[in-house]
């Protein structure tokens, strides 16, 4: 039988549909007998919904390195 910690990691993995058959089975069994993990599992699902719903933009890594270069040149101007 897997531990709560292991179950929790698998639970996070299932949020991305990337847990294998065996892992999902172990998680199911764990959720049947565990008192605390089902509520974690519910919250984890809610978090996935929140993430889908959220409007989040990210800067590309090129844009980030451009920003870093800009900052470096600014700080050497000051020095």
């Amino acid at each position, binding site marked *: 039988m897997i531990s709560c910690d292991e179950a929790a990691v698998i639970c996070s993995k299932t949020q991305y549909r990337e847990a294998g058959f065996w892992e999902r089975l172990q998680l199911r069994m764990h959720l049947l007998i565990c008192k605390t993990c089902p509520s974690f599992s519910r919250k984890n699902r809610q978090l996935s919904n929140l993430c889908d719903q*959220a409007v989040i933009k990210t800067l590309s890594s090129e844009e980030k390195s451009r920003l870093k270069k800009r900052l470096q040149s600014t700080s050497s101007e000051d020095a």
Partner: protein
Amino acid sequence: MESEGGQKTLNPEAWVDRYADYLYNYAISRVGDENIAKDILQDTFVAALQASKSFKGNAAERTWLVAILKHKIIDHYRRSNSQKAKAEVPLGSEFDPSGEGNPLQRQIADPESTRENDPIENSELGLAIQNCLSQIPQNHARAFSLKTIEHWTTEDICKELNISPSNLWVMVHRARTALMECLNTQWFKNN
């Protein structure tokens, strides 16, 4: 970064990795345009760097950067509202970081004054998530973000971060647990 004993110093090298996405989303939620937001973000970092000597350490680094960002957003609106107005808001002591001091600041700090409810709530949610991510270990935040927000494949992330899949899942899981904690009261329905 905050060092021991309440003595706070700035760490400009880490700003982009740690705060750029949060500040960028903040700016988008206020100006509604990604390109303008990028310009404002760059101006903010440059201004912060130039003003870093005056950082008094009485605010957290992030709060301080957000305060400067708000200034830059106000400057943007000043410029676009009136060509005559050349006045820039000085980065001096009269600036009130709580955003309550001056009416223009207050207006910008309150997104509901100008926009409809639903998209705002979703972008506020996005901001809340970014905000939480800027407070957790950076490698966890990055793993989470690549997987959840940018939808990279597990294989690509492992290559990029040079970690094993099981490592990645533990990091993603830690980030999720921290997010649940951090977002808790405001966004989760109790059940």
